[in-house]
């Protein structure tokens, strides 16, 4: 968390980039409080509500549950409850959301 807090200084807006960055911001805001599935570099998957992110793609999930990698036979499928969890951006491998949550979020998924 330290990095996010330290960098939470006064944000400086660069006038020329306002349009593209505001679009991106809109896209991300549309995802807030949606279910999100994040795969981490060590193979674990976290599922939880998307609550917060920043420029380095650090993501905070609420009510997060941890699923082990599928090769693990022990307690496979049985999630462990983590609660509020922050995944550092450099450990994020993939991000998924549920299809129906994209319906009201334009610009995501549509291109793919």
């Amino acid at each position, binding site marked *: *968390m330290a990095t*996010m807090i330290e*960098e*939470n*200084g*006064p*944000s*400086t*807006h660069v006038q020329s980039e306002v349009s*593209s*960055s505001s679009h*991106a*911001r809109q*896209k*991300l*805001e549309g*995802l807030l*409080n949606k*279910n999100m599935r994040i795969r*981490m570099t*060590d*193979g*674990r998957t*976290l*599922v939880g509500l998307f609550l*917060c*992110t*920043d*420029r*380095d*793609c650090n993501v*905070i999930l*609420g*009510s997060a549950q*941890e699923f*082990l990698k599928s090769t*693990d*036979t*022990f307690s496979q499928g049985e999630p*462990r*409850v*983590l*609660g*509020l*969890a*922050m*995944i*550092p951006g450099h*450990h*994020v491998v993939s*991000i*998924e*959301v*549920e*299809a129906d949550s*994209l319906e009201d979020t334009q*610009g*995501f*998924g549509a291109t*793919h």
Partner: protein
Amino acid sequence: MVMKSAVEDDDAGWGLGIPEKMKNNANWVDITHEFKGACKELNLGELLHDKLFGLFEAMSAIEMMDPKMDAGMIGNQVNRKVLNFEQAIKEGAIKVKDLSLPELIGIIDTCFCCLITWLEGHSLAQTVFTCLYVHNPDLIEEPALKSFALGILKVCDIAREKVNKAAVFEEEDFQAMTYGFKMANNVTDLRVTGMLKDVEDELQRKVKSTRSRQGEQRNPEVELEHQQCLALFNRIKFTRLLLTALITFTKKETSSVCEAQKLVAQAADLLSAIHSSIQHGIQSQNDTTKGDHPIMMGFEPLVNQRLLPPTFPRYAKIIKREDMVAYFGKLIERIKTVCDVINTTNLHGILDFFCEFSEQSPCVLSRSLLQTTFLIDNKKVFGTHLMQDMIKDALRYFVTLFWTVCADVICILCCLFNNHQAKDYIDSFVTHCSRPFCSLIQIHGHNRARQRDKLGHILEEFATLQDEAEKVDAALHSLLMKLEPQRQHLACLGTWILYHNLRIMIQYLLSGFELELYSMHEYYYIYWYLSEFLYAWLMSTLSRADSSQMAEERILEEQLKGRSSKKTKKKKKVRPLSKEITMSQAYQNMCAGMYKTMVALDMDGKVRKPQFELDSEQVRYEHRFAPFNSVVTPPPVHYIQFKEMSDLKKYNPPPGSADLYMAASKHFQQAKLILENVPSPDPEVNRILKVAKPNIVVMKLLAGGHKKETKVLPEFDFSAHKYFPVVKII
């Protein structure tokens, strides 16, 4: 097997609540690329979040992939399969029958180590339940191992129950959570001890059959088997004795405590044999240098990793087998001491017993056993008499001892106790005493660091009690005036409470030295408060009591002489307070010596003082003595008063540092003299002497100007005594 961890729900509501959509039927769409792209558009330091979610909430998130916070990480990095008991049996990774003797010995020893690690404050999931066998003893076919697994579970269960009931633990002492593990509740205690006994008998037969016979050529293999059988026999017997002792403690009769004492003594006799046979057990296999846990057959340190709450210590370091025997030895010694409590019947003796026991910093189990032995189910002392009666006895004892001047006690006891109004007053007072005194005793069951905090708080309760005591004293006085106008009732109840107040206050201040809370520049006012104020009050209370007691004895003696023609046999009465008076004098002199030493060192610039920026000495002083503000008698000494009272300018001429060193040396000398005259010195006396003697010399040297110019700060060595340091000039 129920395996659910209890995780507290987050206040903000971001915590739990498992969404229904979690099931795999949801249609997930990958947005990694777009998401990362969109993130890059954000400004440096900008957080994109819901308006209900702020930085404050973000702070409480655990950070994934941080080894300090992410408990799931470790299990994921180990390159082996983590199997639970059933899986391990199915894969053949674990034996449930035909275990060799070395295997059994190794498993049992490791289990003992786990048990101790648990008792030292780690969670069950990371200690005892890393042993797969205890997860489900029903699946074990080997009788020795099965009975042992059940025995260990019972030991844990009873220990947990005792500790919970006594309620003298904090999170740092003990983890009471069982994570839903079954503690062999489907089998009775009697059945388990019976099973252990059966195994024991069977092993004893084997031990006998492999024993060397006279004139027989010894086969080394048979000899080894004999040794191993004996090793296993001792371990099983030890488990049974420990379990039986704990079961005995749960019985309500006082006699059972003696029985428990005998049982643990028998268990202690087995320890040296267990220690010398540790090498017979199998050791853990893999090398631990790669950061992995040591792996023993039957143990899986990571089996419960998923049960742990999100943030939890990564893993408990299980103690070594060699240390296990020593720990059991000490534990048994402590339990034996606990059993002695039943020989003390008066309240003051009990309080002293609890204080003394606590000074060894005993473990949570022995502390809890002491509590539950003393107050069974929190109502009756030793399960037989009421706390109120004990207080009344203590009061009567104290009153007859202390406040017999004018014979008003005899009056109280004879006339007033028959006067039902007076009796009502005293009864209700005694009833009100019962709770604070129970709490006081309970406080002494907590660990040393927590005790201090709680002592500070209980002063409030004693202040209320003192208020009531004074009212009752006044009422008794007016009653007495009506009955016998010549006599007056002294404030005996109030003084009795005052005596306890002073003891608590002294203990509160002294424990700060033990816990290393004070810095050097604070010593002088702490020692001042103790020597000039608290000990002075305590001494005047005690010596007044002592002299009045002697006067009373004289009166009684004369009365007896007058009545009977027979000469009463002259017997030397022991003055029960003389020891306490002597010790208080010694303590007071030690404190006074330390106070003067600190002032003199300060004059010579040998005390480092902090740069007071945001606080001042007054702030610190007031913080140190803050709990005393709730006490009415003795009244708290405020900082300004302290400064006035300790001002050296009031002397003419004001003393210099050499004079103060000299005075300090005299105080230490005085303490030494007092202590050397104690008839049968206990260890405490010798400990204080060990500080007093070198300090006399050092103070004399300092008074003579030794190393006056050195800029090196003196050292304070608390190794000889926890409250008084040996001053070292380097």
